[in-house]
């Protein structure tokens, strides 16, 4: 099943790029095309980033282990859309005005957050090959935890740039909180369970001792 599903998902992930290319070709990118491209690619980068983070929870909940085979693809699409987003900003919006770009990155918190998120994704994209996974071994997993920071940075980037209407960044933030919260619960559950278990045994022994006294 995976053999035909994977190319299908790949094609689905290309739809936004295709839509953008089609609208660019027909000259239908709205009144401010550069802004349209920037927002569109940025939004899709975030969506794919959240999508890649959704794989593990979905896999646990559905017990469908093969889902893991889509994670790299989603992550690389997130990086591709982020790269398109960043390139649009550099080349189309600021037209390689490096002084202005440097000032932006240092001075404007929302650009700093977005730039950081993008930079954090670079090593993840580079080490996404099978050979790199083998070579890095356990460290690969540690390195790839950077994706949490990248996603947080991306949502903050969006939140800090809007003027007043925080609804959309809040939606992304809520999904991200859910995905990260799930991981936290999974991680803490054994500890919580252990504490409950020890409490329960304490109660039991207390009961036993009290019955003994009685």
């Amino acid at each position, binding site marked *: 099943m995976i053999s035909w599903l994977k190319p299908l998902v790949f094609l689905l992930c290309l739809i936004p790029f295709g*839509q953008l290319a089609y609208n660019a070709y027909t000259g*239908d990118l*709205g*009144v*401010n095309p550069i802004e349209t491209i920037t927002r569109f690619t940025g939004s*899709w980068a975030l969506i794919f980033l959240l999508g890649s983070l959704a794989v593990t929870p979905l896999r646990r909940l559905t017990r469908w282990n093969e889902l893991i085979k889509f994670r790299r693809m989603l992550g690389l699409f997130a990086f591709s859309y982020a790269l398109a987003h960043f390139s649009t900003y550099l080349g189309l919006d600021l*037209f390689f005005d490096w002084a202005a770009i440097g000032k*932006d990155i240092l001075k404007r918190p929302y650009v700093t957050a977005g730039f950081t998120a993008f930079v954090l994704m670079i090593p993840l994209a580079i080490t996404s090959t099978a050979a790199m996974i083998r070579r890095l071994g356990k460290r690969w997993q540690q390195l790839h935890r950077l994706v949490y920071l990248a996603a947080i940075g991306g949502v903050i980037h969006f939140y800090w*740039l809007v003027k007043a209407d925080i*609804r959309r960044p809040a939606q992304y933030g809520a999904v991200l909180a859910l995905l990260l919260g799930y991981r936290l619960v999974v991680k803490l559950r054994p500890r919580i369970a252990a504490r409950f278990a020890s409490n329960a045994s304490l109660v039991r022994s207390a009961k036993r001792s009290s019955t003994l006294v009685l």
Partner: protein
Amino acid sequence: MTSASAIALSAGVAATGLDWFQLPSDARAAEKLANVKKSSYNTTEKQNSFKDITTYNNFYELGVDKGDPAQNAKYLTTKPWTVSVEGEVKKAKTFDIDEIMKLSPLEERVYRLRCVEAWSMVIPWIGFPLSALIKSVEPTNNAKFIQFVTLQDPKRMPGQQPGLFGSVLEWPYVEGLRMDEAMHPLTILGVGLYGETLPAQNGAPVRLIVPWKYGFKSIKSIVKVRFVEKQPPASWNIMQPQEYGFYSNVNPEVDHPRWSQATERRIGEFLRRKTLMFNGYGDQVASLYKGMDLKKNY
């Protein structure tokens, strides 16, 4: 799994895809405006198209995305319409919109408009000096500022209906000018665009236009003009005082805390252009602010 990814993808399309390829509906019920004279204040720069000006709007009462106001324009009916002029004046009066249109000869004013978001347009407005309205109601000596108020009616302005996170801004939208700014010949009440009455998304039926200030000062769809003694509140200033000052004069040297104001994108052009002090109207208006620290009074 296919269904899950399909849901994720379609949710994404709904969240980001739709607002940028939908074409705005052409919901204008415009009337031609006759006997419009040209003004000597007009810029000769290339004018933005009617489509640019009427499909790329910041008018949160009709929705927060740039294309929303054109889509929701149909809700904002503007007949009947009255403007109440009150406060520190000798002749307080409620004007019918037809009376407003006849207060003074209509002029075409081709102005640059600079948005605080760092884009700009050149727009052929039709209107008349605000000073004509001011003189007709005879302000008292206590009138130091003028407050303007936009219509509040969630039925006609769907953006005013509270959402899940409350309101984006406090309604009604309010703005203000100092008396000398309001009396300045560049300051006009706009009633038309490209030879016709204003489309709803551009602030029909009557709006303020102050070309040397960021666009949000030019309040739309006005229902009340109030003459006051103290500096009146202004919507964006209330929302984020450290980002939007009362004056909000276009100033390339004072950055918005979150983005640079040094350059702007003229809609329709590829390369950014340098932003001019007072949006290029410095010769006419710089004297209004003589001796003021414009870094503090942003």
